[in-house]
């Protein structure tokens, strides 16, 4: 294992320290493993609280800031945070307008967020949740509630964040976030494994000419192994899987080509080139797109594609939002024109 770290068991502590120091324009520390927007709670605004294991940056803490999340909890590498930092984040984000928890569908996250929610409700704080389950390859359609959340959160949180930023009520933010999640589909492929620092060995081993289809974001194996193919063939497979699950043909969509960490941006643009060709052929209008590393699995090589079907409300929210978070910034679609 070759990593720029000190004692692996100190890594999360040190990275949280570094993260907070580097992003002090936007966030403040609210506990040993939790942060909030520097101006949280924002009066009258629904507080969006996120979190999950470490090792996925920019997700999840990187999205704390104006236009996305109000507070976040850090877990250990690939491990949900305990309830405690989630509660700290919640109290910091709580303005009185209620809280929305939104996180990926992993057992650990579900248990810990639920414990935090129970605790906050006993304090009289209104809390709702949207558990994200965009990964179409992780369970069949009739068991969609078992699907895990992968990079689709990046798209869903655009919508949730923008709605909350417009001072919508908790019920409204909840509804649009549920709608966004219900319209989002993702699938990924992994080329290499990754190494959890405190273990020091790759999580799984994989031959030089093999790839994993349908893997998650924790270095866990995918649903099947196949031979490495040209990028275009792999993209075709992924797009087929997405479109088979939800018919995107003829629709407006927001799109993410996400890198898992070890795959260079150059390759992600090769992927995007194919994705947009397919979208044109299927008459899918890309109204928003992003290509980059957003939801990673340490240094794992691979990529995922996420599509979110947009109705006019979601389109308006995503195109007119302005985002200024620790690790992601977006200007309004009109920023160039108006300049």
């Amino acid at each position: 294992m070759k990593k720029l770290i000190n004692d692996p068991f100190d890594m999360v502590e040190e990275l949280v320290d570094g993260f907070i120091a580097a992003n002090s324009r936007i966030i403040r520390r609210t506990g040993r493993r939790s942060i909030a927007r520097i101006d949280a709670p924002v009066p009258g605004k629904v507080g969006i609280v996120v979190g999950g294991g470490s090792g996925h940056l920019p997700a999840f803490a990187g999205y704390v800031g104006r236009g996305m999340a109000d507070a976040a909890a850090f877990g250990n590498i690939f491990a949900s945070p305990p309830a405690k930092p989630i509660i700290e984040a919640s109290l910091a984000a709580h303005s009185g307008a209620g809280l929305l928890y939104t996180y990926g569908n992993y057992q650990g996250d579900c248990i810990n967020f639920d414990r935090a929610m129970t605790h906050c409700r006993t304090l009289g704080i209104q809390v709702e949740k949207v558990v994200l389950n965009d990964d179409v390859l992780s369970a069949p359609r009739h068991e969609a509630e078992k699907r895990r959340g992968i990079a689709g959160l990046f798209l869903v949180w655009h919508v949730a964040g923008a709605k909350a930023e417009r001072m919508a009520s908790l019920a409204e933010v909840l509804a649009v976030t549920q709608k966004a999640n219900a319209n989002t589909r993702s699938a990924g492929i992994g080329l290499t494994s990754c190494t959890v620092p405190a273990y020091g060995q790759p999580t799984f081993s994989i031959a030089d000419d093999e790839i994993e289809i349908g893997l998650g974001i924790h270095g866990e194996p995918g649903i099947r192994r196949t031979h490495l193919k040209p990028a275009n063939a792999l993209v075709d497979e992924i797009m087929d899987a997405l479109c088979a699950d939800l018919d995107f043909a003829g629709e407006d969509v927001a799109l993410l080509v996400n890198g898992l960490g070890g795959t260079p941006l150059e390759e992600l643009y090769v992927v995007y080139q194919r994705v947009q060709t397919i979208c044109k052929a299927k008459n899918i209008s890309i109204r928003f797109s992003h290509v980059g590393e957003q939801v990673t699995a340490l240094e794992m090589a691979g990529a995922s594609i996420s599509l979110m079907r947009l109705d006019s409300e979601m389109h308006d929210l995503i195109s007119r939002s302005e985002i200024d978070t620790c690790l992601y910034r977006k200007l309004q679609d009109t920023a160039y024109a108006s300049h």
Partner: protein
Amino acid sequence: MPVIEGEQLRTALLAGCRVIENHKDRLCAIDGETGDGDHGISMTIGARAIARALKSLPAKPSPGEVFQAASDAFADDVGATIGPIYESAFAAAAGVAAQQNSLDSCRIWVDILHAMGDAISQAGGAKRGDKTLLDALLPAADYLASASNRQDLSIHTALLEAGSTALAAAEATRDMVASKGRASRLGARSAGHPDAGATSFALLLDAMARSLAGKATG
């Protein structure tokens, strides 16, 4: 053999924590086969947190205080699935032990393990056969229940047997198909490897029993 009071329990749990840390890499490797390869790490973080908490307990703690300190340690430092699972399980153990000065009968250990099992099921929704740590814990409880009527067995010997039973049961999870947690996503692909959480629970119980019986742990 000394009776099993808080001090012995503390020593035994510390021995268990050392064994967990010594098996960190093996536990990660097992978890890596079907999960995300971090179980040895989560358990080591938990073990270290327990060790810190137990060392700062006052002298002669009650058994309940020892279990509660372990619960709090898991609650604060671990996260993941296993963090709240053990938080609840140790808290349940603390509840059973609360009124006791010593834990010297099979019966009380059966109650403790059943309370832990119930708490685990409540926390994570798993039942026996789902390929989780319950599949090491409940067989150990079964053994102790059957042993509780036998006069010929000391509690120390019975716990040693319970530890061996848990180890064998953990090994036997190899043939099960996971239906909880990450490994469940692999479906049939999850068979063929023992369950990581069952393995670590068995190591912990076995090490505690060895410590209580004055045997070396490893």
